[in-house]
């Protein structure tokens, strides 16, 4: 059937979270605490106010969280080795995690008792995991 679908006039535009941020008008940018700045250990030379230390900590937390989330993204489709409790090692192809990072959805899970095509690994059962990007 090759009938062309008549488009009814669109009634809504795609919503956006916000508009792109523009130049700050003050500096040339490339913020030292931006995404790609190397994480340096915070060694305050002068005593800082409580407020700015908290916001520094918050920024550091946010950057670390973002890096962790990106590491999960980088893992998708890769072979990952998991170390579980009691010295059990398994490997699998990483698929996805859920919102709270409570479970990992994996495929081709190699276990001591055979290969499971699809599986959910409880993160509380995982001691550590490693993969090569």
């Amino acid at each position, binding site marked *: 059937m090759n009938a062309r679908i008549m488009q009814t006039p*669109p009634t809504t*535009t*795609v919503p956006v979270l916000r508009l792109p*941020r523009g*130049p700050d008008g003050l500096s040339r940018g*490339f913020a030292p605490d931006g995404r790609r700045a190397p994480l340096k250990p915070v060694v305050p030379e002068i005593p800082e106010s409580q407020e700015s230390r908290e916001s520094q900590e918050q920024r550091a937390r*946010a950057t670390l969280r973002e890096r962790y989330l*990106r590491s999960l993204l980088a893992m998708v489709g890769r072979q990952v080795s998991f170390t579980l409790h009691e010295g059990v090692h398994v490997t699998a192809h990483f698929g996805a995690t859920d919102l709270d990072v409570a479970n990992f959805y994996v495929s081709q899970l190699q276990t001591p008792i055979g290969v499971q095509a699809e599986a959910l690994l409880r993160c509380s059962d995982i001691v550590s995991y490693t993969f090569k990007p």
Partner: protein
Amino acid sequence: MAMRQTPLTCSGHTRPVVDLAFSGITPYGYFLISACKDGKPMLRQGDTGDWIGTFLGHKGAVWGATLNKDATKAATAAADFTAKVWDAVSGDELMTLAHKHIVKTVDFTQDSNYLLTGGQDKLLRIYDLNKPEADPKEISGHTSGIKKALWCSEDKQILSADDKTVRLWDHATMTEVKSLNFNMSVSSMEYIPEGEILVITYGRSIAFHSAVSLDPIKSFEAPATINSASLHPEKEFLVAGGEDFKLYKYDYNSGEELESYKGHFGPIHCVRFSPDGELYASGSEDGTLRLWQTVVGKTYGLWKCVLPEDSGDLAKPKISFPETAEEELEEIASENSDSIDSSTPEVKA
């Protein structure tokens, strides 16, 4: 129900945007650089259009700009007779490469070790970025100013376009392998490594050639003079823009015009797909860059799909990839401030 495209306008430039380029996909996402006649090329986060920084130093219009694959370096070509190499993380200028005329185009090799430049002096130059003091290798042959020069075939060959010709050169021997002649001015050129495809625009034509043999593959005609076109990474679509201020989207296989968008207030000078194909960016005489969704209505970057059962406002914060950490904080902050307002009633004596 069809949704209408919401382009995201990136402001900041004060003069026409004449060139733009995306980086590859890096662990920090991908990036976008824009060249502007105001002499101040800007770096932006590729999926949101957020400004990151401005490369300050050129003393004339910047005609060409590019990023290396991992967006650690940027290169710019300017009317001040120089090409500059920049640290794209800090914004610092790393090298100034003097030329004898306006420089129009710059391109890094895959390993970022060499920079190709071309411009009004009609020479292609290859700089070894590990030996900035050494003289560049020069390739002559063009008889009019070079508009675009690109590495191709894994940096073993070079493609260059002047006003009426596109030439293919062998890097090792620095000699011309083949050339194409046009009777209309070539306005743009794009090289697609996967599949070795060359996209050339001239007049109203958008032409596709093999980058290896320069043999024609196919071509389409647009309703107006086209200044730039880009092929989607999966080669399903192409987008093109030009003198009528509109952006056109075509099906690459059938040549059917799928969509056209108004939005810019001046001719479009450059258009490129992002490396993941999810959006395309256009730069215009009106001084703005606009980001457009490839699939209208999809949740990506700053565009948020709203399903029929959701209310207009984001009632519950939805944390979805690839939101930035800052957006997560903004959503959490607004949630926090709401609860504080409602739980601490003011007591007046």
